[in-house]
C-alpha cells in the first residue's frame, strides 16, 4: 500500500510542478520538453503504484518494471520480430507504395480526364477499411513478408496519392505565368517549380502513411504469418497470457512508429525549410 501512497504523492507533486512551470515559463524551450517528460514519467509511476498497490494480476496489467525486465530478457526475439515486420514488411511496402503513388500523381496531374475519373474513386477508397484486404493478400502472396508488404502498398497508396495531387495544384497562376514567359518546358516547370511546391503536401501524406504502414503490416500478420513477426508474437503471447511480452512488443512498435515518423519529419524539415509551417 505504501507504494500506492508514494505514487499518489509523486503525482500531486508533479501536477503542482507542471502547473507552476506552465504558468511561469510557458514559452521557454526547456519547459516545452520538461513538462511533457514529467507527465510521461508520472503516468509510469502511477501505473506501477496502482498495479503494486492493489495487487493487480499480471495477466490483466503487468507493472512497467516487469515489462522492462521482460524487454531486456527477450531482446533477441524482439529483434527478429522487428526485422520481419518493420524492416521487411512495413518498410519495403512503404517505399514501393509511396513511389507508386508519386508516379501516378504526376500522371493524374497531366490528364484532366484521369483526374476527374480517378480522384473521386481514390478519395472513396482512401476512406475504406483497407486493412480488410489482408486475408486476400495473405492467400495470394503467401504467409511471409511479401503479403504484408502488399497490404502496406495498398494502404499507403491512396493517402499519398490524394495529398500529392493536391500538392501539384499548389502553385498560383502568377508563378505559372512566370515559368511560361521564361519559355520553360513541361519537365522544367515540373522539376523546378511544381515538385518543390508540392513537397509540404507530399510530406503530409508520407507522415500519415508511416502509421498506416505499421498498422497494415501488424494486422496482416493476424491472418497468418511464419513463426515470427510482431503481429504473430502478439497474438500467440496473448494466447499464452504472457502480457509482459505483449507490452514489450507494443513498446517496440511505439518506438519504431515514433522513430519512423520522426525520420520523415526530419527529412521534411530539411527539404521544406522555406514553408511557413516550418518557421519559428
Amino acid at each position, binding site marked *: 500500500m505504501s507504494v500506492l501512497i508514494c505514487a499518489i504523492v509523486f503525482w500531486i507533486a508533479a*501536477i503542482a510542478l*507542471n*502547473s507552476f*512551470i*506552465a*504558468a511561469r515559463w*510557458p514559452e521557454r524551450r526547456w*519547459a*516545452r520538453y520538461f*513538462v*511533457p517528460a*514529467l*507527465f*510521461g514519467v508520472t503516468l509510469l509511476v502511477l501505473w506501477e503504484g496502482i498495479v503494486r498497490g492493489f495487487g493487480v494480476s499480471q*495477466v*490483466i*496489467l503487468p507493472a512497467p518494471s516487469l515489462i522492462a525486465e521482460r524487454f531486456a530478457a527477450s531482446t533477441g526475439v524482439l529483434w527478429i520480430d522487428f526485422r520481419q515486420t518493420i524492416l521487411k514488411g512495413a518498410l519495403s511496402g512503404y517505399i514501393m507504395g509511396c513511389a507508386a503513388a508519386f508516379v501516378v500523381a504526376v500522371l493524374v496531374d497531366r490528364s484532366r*480526364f*484521369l483526374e*476527374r*475519373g480517378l480522384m*473521386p*474513386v481514390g478519395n*472513396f477508397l482512401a*476512406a*475504406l*477499411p483497407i*486493412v*480488410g*484486404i*489482408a*486475408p*486476400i493478400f*495473405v*492467400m*495470394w502472396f503467401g504467409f511471409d513478408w511479401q503479403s504484408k508488404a502488399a497490404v502496406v502498398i495498398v494502404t499507403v497508396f491512396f493517402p499519398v496519392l490524394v495529398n500529392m495531387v493536391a500538392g501539384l495544384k499548389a502553385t498560383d497562376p502568377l508563378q505559372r505565368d512566370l515559368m511560361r514567359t521564361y519559355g520553360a518546358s513541361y519537365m522544367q516547370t515540373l522539376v523546378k517549380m511544381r515538385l518543390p511546391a508540392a513537397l509540404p503536401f507530399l510530406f503530409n501524406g508520407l507522415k500519415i502513411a*508511416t*502509421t498506416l504502414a*505499421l*498498422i497494415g503490416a*501488424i*494486422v496482416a500478420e*493476424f*491472418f*497468418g504469418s511464419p513463426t515470427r513477426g*510482431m503481429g504473430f508474437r*502478439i*497474438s500467440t503471447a*496473448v494466447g499464452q*497470457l504472457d*502480457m509482459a511480452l*505483449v507490452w514489450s*512488443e*507494443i513498446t517496440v*512498435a*511505439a518506438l519504431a*512508429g*515514433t522513430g*519512423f*515518423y520522426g525520420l520523415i519529419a526530419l527529412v521534411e524539415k530539411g527539404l521544406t525549410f522555406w514553408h511557413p509551417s516550418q518557421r519559428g
Partner: protein
Amino acid sequence: MTRVFPVLTVILAIIALWYGAAVWLNSAWVYDQAQRSGASVGFWDMLGQTMGLKRPVLPAPHQVVMGLWDGITGQKITSKRSLVYHGWITLEATGLGFIIGTVAGLLLAVALVHNKALDMSFMPWAIASQTIPVLAIAPMVIVVLASLGVKGLLPKALIAAYLSFFPVLVGMVKGLRAPDAMQIDLLRTYGAPKAAMFWKLRLPSSMAYFFASLKVGVAAALVGTIVAELPAGAVAGLGARLLQGSYYGQTIQIWAALIAAACLAAVLVALVGLVERIVLKRMGLAR
C-alpha cells in the same frame, strides 16, 4: 455529365481489369483440374469455368455481387449466414465506440484549451501516440477484458472509441483555437465572461474542424471494430466473417464481407456529412 462520365469510365475500366485478372488467376486451377481428369479444355470452356469456381483465387465481380445479394436478402436476417446480422453487430460496436470516443475527445479538448499545464503536458503525448500502431493492442484488450468478465459489445466499442478519440481531440483543439487574436480581443473589450467566449466564439468557429474530424473518426471506429473482431475466436461481425473466410478458403465470403464493410464505411461518412450540413445550416454557418 462532364463529372459523371470520367468516373464511370474509370469504374468500368476497373471492372474490366477485374474480369481479366479473374480469368488469368483462375485459369491455372481449371487447366490443372482438367489435366488431372485427363480431359482437355478449349479456351472458351476455360473462360466459362473460371467465372463459376466455388473457391476461386479471385472471384469475378458478378460472383461477389451474388455473394453479397445472397448474404443480404437470401437468408433470414437473424441467420448466422446473413451479412445483415454480422453487419449489424459490427455497426453496433462502431456506433457505441464512436459516441464514447467523440464525447471523450470533445471534453478533453475543452479542458486542454482552458488549462495551460494540461495542454503542455498532454498534447505532445497525444500527437506521439498517433504514430503508434494502436491496433496492435486490440487483441490484448479483448483478452484482458474477457478475463475480467467484460465480453460482447463493450470491448470492441472501447477499441473503436480509442481510434476515433484522437482525430476528434486533435481537430477540436485546433478548432477551438481557430478564432484569431482580434476576435478574442474584441470579446474581451466587451467584457465577455469565459463562458460566453466559449459558446459564442470558440465553439462556432470550431465546427468545420469538428465535422472534418468526425468523418475521419467514424471511419477509424469501423476499422477498429473490424480488427477487434479478429482475435479470440470471434464468431460474429464482419471481421469474424473475414477471418473465417480466410481459414476455410471461402474467397467469395471474404470479398462479400469486404464490400459490405466498404459500403458501411461510405454510408457512415455520408451520414456524418448529412448531419454536418443540417447543423451548419441551423447555426447559420453554411456557405
